[in-house]
């Protein structure tokens, strides 16, 4: 059994605070996701996600405010459009697009945050380590 390495890019205002809310309520979830705080999910360019996979991450999460709740009013609209395109690019490059999760978590949704993390960690755990799948691709 391996421990998947997951990087979560969380917007500062909704999702990061949602993670804090989960903490304040002492909700337990697996420790695999390491959170990187960014001002807005709109800050996450596709390159950052690709780079994270290149460094050997088994999964990447991009979490932002719900549409309409963005602290920067429409920053997450870009995320909502950009990330599905990136998912298609991942598939095209031979990377399972399920390794990238996009979700919306508000500052109040501690419970949702814990659930999202738990489910994504389980989903990634069920896949082989990312580095191995890449090796397999190469040897094909």
């Amino acid at each position: 059994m391996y421990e998947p390495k997951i990087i979560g890019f969380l917007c500062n205002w909704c999702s990061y605070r949602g993670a804090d809310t989960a903490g304040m309520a002492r909700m337990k979830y697996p420790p695999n996701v390491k959170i990187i705080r960014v001002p807005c999910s709109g800050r996450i360019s596709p390159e950052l996600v690709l780079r994270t996979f290149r460094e050997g991450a088994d999964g990447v999460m991009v979490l932002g405010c719900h549409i309409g709740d963005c602290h920067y009013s429409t920053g997450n609209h870009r995320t909502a459009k950009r990330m599905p395109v990136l998912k298609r690019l991942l598939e095209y490059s031979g990377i399972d697009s399920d390794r990238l999760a996009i979700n919306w978590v508000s500052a109040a949704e501690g419970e949702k945050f814990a659930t999202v993390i738990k489910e994504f960690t389980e989903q990634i755990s069920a896949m082989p380590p990312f580095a191995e799948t890449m090796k397999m691709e190469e040897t094909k």
Partner: protein
Amino acid sequence: MSEKIGVYVCHCGSNIAGVVNVAEVSAWAGKELAKNGVVIARDYKFMCSSLGQELIEKDIKEHNLTRVVVAACSPHLHEPTFRNACARAGVNPYLFEMTNIREQDSWVTTDKLEATKKAKALIGAAVGRVVYQQPLSSLFVPIDPQVLIVGGGVTGIQAALEIADSGRKVFLVEREPTIGGHMAQFDKTFPTLDCSACILTPKMFDAGNHKNITLLTWSEVEKVEGYIGNFTVTIRKRARFITEDLCTGCGVCWEKCPKKVIDPVFEAGLGYRKAVYTPFPQAVPNYPVIDHENCTFFQKGTCKVCQKFCPTGAIDFEQQDEIITIKVGNIILATGWDLFDTRKVPNYGYGRLANVYTSLEFERLSNASGPTGGNIVLRDGKTVPKSVAIVHCVGSRDQNYHPYCSAICCMQSLKFAHLVEEKTGADVYNCYIDIRTPGKGYEEFYQRLLGEGTHFIRGKVAEITDAARNASEEGKLIVQVEDTLIGKQRRIPVDMVILSAAMEARHDAKEVAQKFGISCSHDDWFIERHPKLDPVATMTDGVFVAGACQGPKDIPASVAQGAAAAARVLSIIGQGEIEIEAATAIVDDVTCVGCTQCVSSCPYQAIEFQAERGKAYVIEALCKGCGTCVGTCLPKSITLKHFTDEQIVAEMIGAMTVMKSFEVVAPVPVEVA
């Protein structure tokens, strides 16, 4: 490595140290991260205490630290604390990085080993990042001393008076025709039983006549633009059809108006008003409003009786909505609460059984200036009830409706019980789940009620029905309740039932939150910056919340919050100018190809395309640092300061490196012969 980094791991008492092995983590950081530039790593009981901060400051000076990493609680809580400590010791605050090993590690991880490993990975990330951080200087913007307060209930009035008394200008916006809010509807206030109007109306009068307060009633905020110190607010002042300058508030118009309609707002549907009306005699301002939907002239084209009789010619049927634009530096939201719609609990029969009342209806019924002149009578308007049941927790503490405790209902129900007994001598049954009386003089009030002969039944009411089972229940409302203290089902026949309904967030709270750029909780209450330490600020600088829009509250708490928000605003105004986020975007002219993708991506129109140069340009004062343009820019020409690609990648690699170092090589399976 030229940078000298100090790493500080906080115990937070046992909050972190109880789960994360902090000593091991700091020893690990000192050893394993030395190659990244860590020259000193310490752990300490409370990093945020003055001693903890001094420790950092002392180390900065003694070890010539150039960067600082603190692993403790959420940066939303203490990032400013440590930034200041760094600044005091001569390290630019933007060379500090905080990582969250409490809310996002020790509080959410059960396994101590795993939590310790996670803390290491997070510190590895922060150390990786901090190396690439750049010193930044904040931009200072002047604060407009004018203040907008939204909501003219007791909270808004209190805040407005505090600020106006200090000599600052206040715009008080209220959506109803008068200020006063819910408190103006109440009869008596607990626990002192002083008359609500008697203590409120002098404050309303003061607010209405204060030279520094501009009242904008019958008005709503349409749009908010700008940022702390410099908000531009668009307000729609709805047409009253009354020329305010001419109106004297004599009341001839509403005396003469032939159209009588039910007043669903102030009289809670119990009483009537005219189509031209002021909600109550002490309304501030005293100008009436013509109710467009019900006015005969507007609906049928003839009448104009009010215009005929108005002695000053103040009626103006041509009046249009007015759009007002104001500039303010700070905003206080005091938008209050709505009453839970008791129709949603069908088994309590409200709306179907005539003599089931809501708490707000009872307030009007009992109020001397209400529709019955303060006589507590049934819906027929004359029968005095001989027995009354008061049902607590209607819509609150109920998983089907609102899980929260509505805070005021117990005391309100006790007050109702007292008023009913005092005015009618009826038997009163209070059906409660728990009696909650935390507050000055509240428990004493409860004890007094116990002595007054009110029946207290501990149990949640199952049903209120008029289906009688025997002669004694004939013509009565029967309250079906399990008395959990004696363990028996009871059927209590009464004449009147009062439902102590929950306070809930305004129906349009979400819309309002979006307008002002703040967020709502699950139950739509506005979220404060910190539940304990910053209860009136929000995550949006310059926007404050006060009173029941933040959560259920009684009058003393609302007034206290109104004053608290006012104090916060005054302290900002007093500073004259305020530091705004230094993390703004900047365009690299060399690589910018002038595609204008960033211009359309910016939510704030902070990027302009300078056609003569063929380059995009970020207007720093408008940029709020979201970085959406950075994610959009194809040639990577835009950088968001403090969140550069370099910094984010270094943070990610820092975490990945530590995580990889934990990966044990899988043991080769031993073949068993």
